[in-house]
């Protein structure tokens, strides 16, 4: 049947293409609005930004083609390297903690009872709340003024006020805390879906064989959750690489982009700084493409590793 169909498709070209187009015209017309938007708002800006990354462009005067000079500059730019190293540390910590806490929450609140549902809803709330509102709330929590919750709590225990947002050593930990708090609810929901697809019989069999809870988790839950874990890790990592609001809203008020001593300088805020503060839109586009390549390569490695470990 397949051969017959294939043979039919490979038949005389004359007229078949036109017939196929006529036959599928309705589908094409229905796809057209999406394709127009997709091309206009995604493909076009992407290609334009790739072109701009090869130019010197200040936003107003015409771009001047400079070849790969912006990419060469990236390799010698100390602030970019600093932003890259900050970003890698932040991504590693945020991904590990978000995924870890999400898995713990998923195991704790995987049931269908009202208590579990309520807890899942509570932990999921940050995911459906405006990020601007969330980060303004964090800014207030760590404020130096008398309404700053963190220092108020510290004061109750006799601790002197802490300059939370102006202490370089606290910048990345605070950012990781914010990312974990706001991201673990969403990842938990994905893990719950994954955990609930694991057949209960596997656990019953393991219990009959005398497996402990830890052994069941290690030998059944974790291996069978591998595809879900890969998805959670990759999506969390991509979001972490693109961190912007946390730096822009929470730390920028303390000291320009990047916070004190650039302790919170990440790639996207640096890109913004170059593009919209320093008018170097060509260089900012090169940073954007460098970030794309970094995320692409790391995601590919993760997917390959995930596939390889599944085949073990």
């Amino acid at each position: 049947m397949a051969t017959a169909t294939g043979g039919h498709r490979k038949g005389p070209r004359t007229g078949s293409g036109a017939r196929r187009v006529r036959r599928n015209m309705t589908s094409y017309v229905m796809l057209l609005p999406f394709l127009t938007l997709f091309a206009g708002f995604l493909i076009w800006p992407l290609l334009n930004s790739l072109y701009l990354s090869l130019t010197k462009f200040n936003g107003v005067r015409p771009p001047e083609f400079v070849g790969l000079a912006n990419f060469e500059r990236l390799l010698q730019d100390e602030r970019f390297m600093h932003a890259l190293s900050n970003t890698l540390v932040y991504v590693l910590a945020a991904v590990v903690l978000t995924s870890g806490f999400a898995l713990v929450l998923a195991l704790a609140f995987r049931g269908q009872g009202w208590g579990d549902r309520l807890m899942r809803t509570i932990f999921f709330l940050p995911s459906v709340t405006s990020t601007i509102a969330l980060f303004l709330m964090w800014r207030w929590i760590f404020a130096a003024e008398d309404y700053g919750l963190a220092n108020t709590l510290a004061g109750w225990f006799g601790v002197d006020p802490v300059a939370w947002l102006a202490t370089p050593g606290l910048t990345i930990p605070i950012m990781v805390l914010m990312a974990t708090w706001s991201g673990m609810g969403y990842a938990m929901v994905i893990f719950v879906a994954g955990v609930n697809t694991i057949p209960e019989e596997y656990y019953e069999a393991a219990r009959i064989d005398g497996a402990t809870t830890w052994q069941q988790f290690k030998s059944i839950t974790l291996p069978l959750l591998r595809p879900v874990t890969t998805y959670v890790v990759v999506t969390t990592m991509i979001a972490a690489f693109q961190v912007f609001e946390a730096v822009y809203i929470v730390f920028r008020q303390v000291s320009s982009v990047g916070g004190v001593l650039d302790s919170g300088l990440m790639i996207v805020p640096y890109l913004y700084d170059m593009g919209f503060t320093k008018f170097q839109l060509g260089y900012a586009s090169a940073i954007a493409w460098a970030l794309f390549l970094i995320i692409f390569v790391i995601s590919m490695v993760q997917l390959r590793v995930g596939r390889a470990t599944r085949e073990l």
Partner: protein
Amino acid sequence: MNKRIATMAAITTIGLLAGACATSTAPAAEQAPTTGPADLTFWMTGSEDEALVMQKAADLYTRSHPDVKVKVSALSWDDGHAKVLAAATGKSGPDIVSGGLSWGIEFGGLGGMVDLREQGIPEAVKAKTQQGVWESITSRDGAVYGTPLDMTVYLTYYRKDLLEKAEVEPPKTWEELTSAMDRLQDDGVKVPYSMDWGNIDWLQYFNFLRQAGGALYTPDCKPALNSDAGVTALNYWADLYKKYKAPTQTAEVPAALANGVAMVSGGSWQIKAVDTAQPKMKDKWATAPLPAGPAGQGAFIGGRIVGVMSYSKHAAQAADFIKSLYTPEAVKVITDAAASRGVLWISPLTDNIGNLPATPDQIEAIKAAFAAGYGPPNCAGWETSQAEVTKKLQEVIYGKSEAKPALDAAAKIMEQNAG
């Protein structure tokens, strides 16, 4: 496979070529008749209150020019710069913008704003404004892309009760400031001094640099902050944090005073805010000029410029409206409307400082600060150097570097960005 690669390459090439066409520059804006009707849009950087205040001046203008309507919208300081750049890039947006004192030079240099000399505004305004500010808004080639809209200056806000208790007078010099902080600490004041506007930033350092006799640039725009005066200023400023525990995280003047900080260096606009935000502070605080350093007084003068975007089709009407903002009637309308909203508006026309809605001692402090004030430098590359220079200064505050090498590195950054 090869076919697919070839297709991808073709698409990318077409995209790059198309991209090249997409970002080409359009010709200069075609001008509408200079005396005809116009609907002007004005992006006012600042708060909603300040935009409403400016709308009063716009309404005043419309009463005498019924054909010209001006709609004022607030643009937050946080993203105002990016939005004006987006408007200049897209050649679409407001006819008139206000923003930081350096914005005119920046956007004008890019070709995004009109040189107001063509509209005759500088001649009408220059002689009446603070000269330090005027120098700051004038490009090196003499172009004026934005004229001063308002001014702010640094003042010392102090708690009268705490200073009296410690038997300390408001400090007039660095030595007196140091001695006052020691006395206040001995008297149990945990935080004798803090800084608000531009805390751990070049802005606060600028005050000390000027008081020590230094400058960011030489008159011919060579970086000069790594001079002996620059080192003296940086060491003194950094000691305020390291030795006297001035907070590195900023609390605004009203909150700092209410929290028991004895002296705060902050912007003049806070004069109206203290009693409003912290009613319990009423009659407990006062203002003074910043203490003088080894070379005398010195304070940064900030504020906003106002200018016309180069794509505006109504540049003549927009410029005429800007000119109207310097008439005595408009200044009075703006100052009164601002005061009714708890904002101290200081016109760039220095003759008006004596009529500010403030107490006589506050007016004296403001006058003294302006007399010894300096605006930001107008040298190429300063705007792009600020953040990195600030990080170098912070290295000294946080004990990561000595003053001289940090300032040398800052000077190098300024030199590189000068192009």
